[in-house]
């Protein structure tokens, strides 16, 4: 099963190395990993999307992360109300005559054209994984020349409500 885990870690040299090394040697399966500074420059925040077989596997990942002296807090936020976003840059084949069409196509995704070459354009999109994947599928027929994804970064929303609770009322009634 796929889980999203966040960890706050000391922003010391080598901490990324410690954690990726741990994942590799314990054969934990990571799909993506992102890291960046927090409001406190001494502390970084990491977001992992991992694949585990079962609860026990998940438990091991969390406990092994906690064993690292530089890891301050670990949390599996998969089942919580979270904001999870990634950014993707997609370079696609685009002859000048196709550009208008592409531009219209990606508009609903709020993707922007960030670079234009002779035979290609580069799109930038941010959003949750599903949205990013949907856009990639959509532009695939044009021919993707290069693709770079940052992986998910996430944190909890400002409420304690679970995403799966759904809204208690809707705007219709």
């Amino acid at each position, binding site marked *: 099963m796929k889980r999203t885990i966040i960890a706050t870690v000391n922003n010391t040299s*080598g901490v990324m190395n*410690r954690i990726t090394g741990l994942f590799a*040697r314990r054969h934990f399966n990571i799909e993506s990993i992102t890291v960046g500074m927090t409001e406190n420059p001494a502390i970084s925040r990491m977001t992992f999307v991992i694949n585990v077989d079962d609860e026990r596997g998940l438990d*091991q990942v969390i406990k*092994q992360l906690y*064993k690292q002296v530089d890891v301050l807090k670990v949390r599996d936020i998969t089942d919580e109300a979270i904001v999870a976003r990634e950014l993707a840059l997609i370079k696609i084949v685009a002859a000048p005559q196709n550009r208008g069409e592409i531009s219209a196509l990606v508009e609903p995704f709020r993707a922007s054209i960030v670079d234009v070459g002779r035979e290609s354009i580069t799109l930038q999109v941010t959003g949750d994984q599903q949205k990013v994947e949907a856009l990639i599928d959509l532009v695939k027929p044009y021919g993707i020349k290069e693709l770079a994804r940052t992986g998910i970064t996430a944190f909890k929303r400002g409420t304690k409500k679970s995403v799966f609770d759904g809204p208690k009322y809707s705007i219709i009634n």
Partner: protein
Amino acid sequence: MSPKIKEVDGRELYTGNQEMTGSSMLIQALARENVDVIFGYPGGAILPTYDEIYRTGIRHILARHEQGAIHAAEGYARISGKPGVCVVTSGPGATNVITGIADAMIDSLPLVVITGQVATTVIGTDAFQEADIIGVTMPITKHNYQVREVDELPRIIKEAFHIATTGRPGPVLIDLPKDVSTASGFFNYDQPLDLPGYQPTIVPNKLQIKKLADAVTNAKKPVVLAGAGVLHAGGSAEFLEYIEQQQIPVANTLLGLGSFPGTHPLSLGMAGMHGTYTANMALHEADLLISIGARFDDRVTGALQHFAPNAKVAHIDIDPAEIGKNIETAIPVVGDAKEALSMLIAENGTPSHCDKWKQQIADWKSEFPLWYKEDGESLKPQRLIEMIYEETNGDAIVTTDVGQHQMWAAQFYKFDQPNRWVTSGGLGTMGFGFPSAIGAQFAEPEKQVVAVLGDAGFQMTAQEMSILQELNLPVKIILVNNAALGMVRQWQELFYDERYSNSLFPIQPDFIKMAEAYNIKGWKVDDPKEMQTALKEALEYDGPVLMDCRVTKDENVYPMIAPGKGHHEMEGIKP
């Protein structure tokens, strides 16, 4: 103010909060941590520190190979309970201690390892004797540090000792670049520790203790599996009290031997691949298995799908990551073994009614004891261990190397006391036995230390005989000499149709002459009738000794759980 804190060899160590070089800080900090001996080997990048060692006179034991130094530090740590300290130079000095660091990591031994490093100005340029020891040791240390600024040094050393010795003990490495060791800074060792990411749980949850006590009351076939965690916690006395209160049979892991008296009626002996039939069958049939400070290593469990199939598992461990790692656990108890046992004693639950179970165990014990066959000609290695046990009154510190002799020592030397047994369990490091005996002798200068070694493993670190010679250290080396890589030979016999690939020694050195080269007294024995007398004489000899004991060459260790098999499938359970 510089209070005098130590006098060693007529030289004094001072400490105080003042300006000094990085190397001075290091030695001052070691003195503050009550380090009474360093094992090490000098070289370019660590020379400033060696100069400080010279100046202060802090005790340093010069090994003849860095691997000898680190295994000595491990033996010292295992017996003294204090951190072993090892100092080596950069590059090859540092890479030579890697095996020992990995060994200490997997067997939870507290070490503080200080490696020299090239100057910060050239780190990353493939400078002379530069090795990325931080990168290399990241997975095999509990934590490691590279010191970038001299002012960080006191904090780092203080943290290193704290991390190495608390929680689940382990090795911590400090990489000290040469320019940092010569730079000047302000030494302040009184700053409080600030380690928000390192907060081991010592006192277990009371509810879990209650659950465990109730599980014992309701069990029909309870058994305890006790590992080295009990020893690291210093909890043997509490353990004995708890077991006598609850009357639960006890199996030990290899490393847990001595945590519970081996001759106690409730002792089942060692569990695992070469454990006793009784211990393994008790684990197999148990309905409640309480693991205390043991980590369900595969050499203990055998094939996991057959392990303790009917048992509800309770697991007391200071490392939460060990709980549930290999075995589904119903009652997790995170905390120090001694604390947990004290709480269990205080809980004073009703013991289980398990007379039938105890009868079953007694039957197994009498029907399937450990065995070997005398042939009336050759010296049986098992008999040799029994003789060592008899001649040392079961009270020696015994260290071993890795292989058949290690298993025989574990089987036939009945440890009644904690902290008498030093062996490489998790990593199975050949070359460990002899230098670890040297470290053990430093931890207990007055005690009899016997190094039971294979003829192959001894040759991996034999150069440390220099230390015995230099210091007249009375370690007794006993070679269980079968002219083979015995354990490898056994596996080739059993699982490779007797194709003895590179496991039989066509020639061997004259071990007695080797000993004599170091001015160590040697005995060679091959006649079983002479063994006991020679052994007595050697053990009584005032000084280091090497005994070359020529044992039966093709003896195998039994009983045995073959790879892939379960506890109930032991082979060689009877003559």
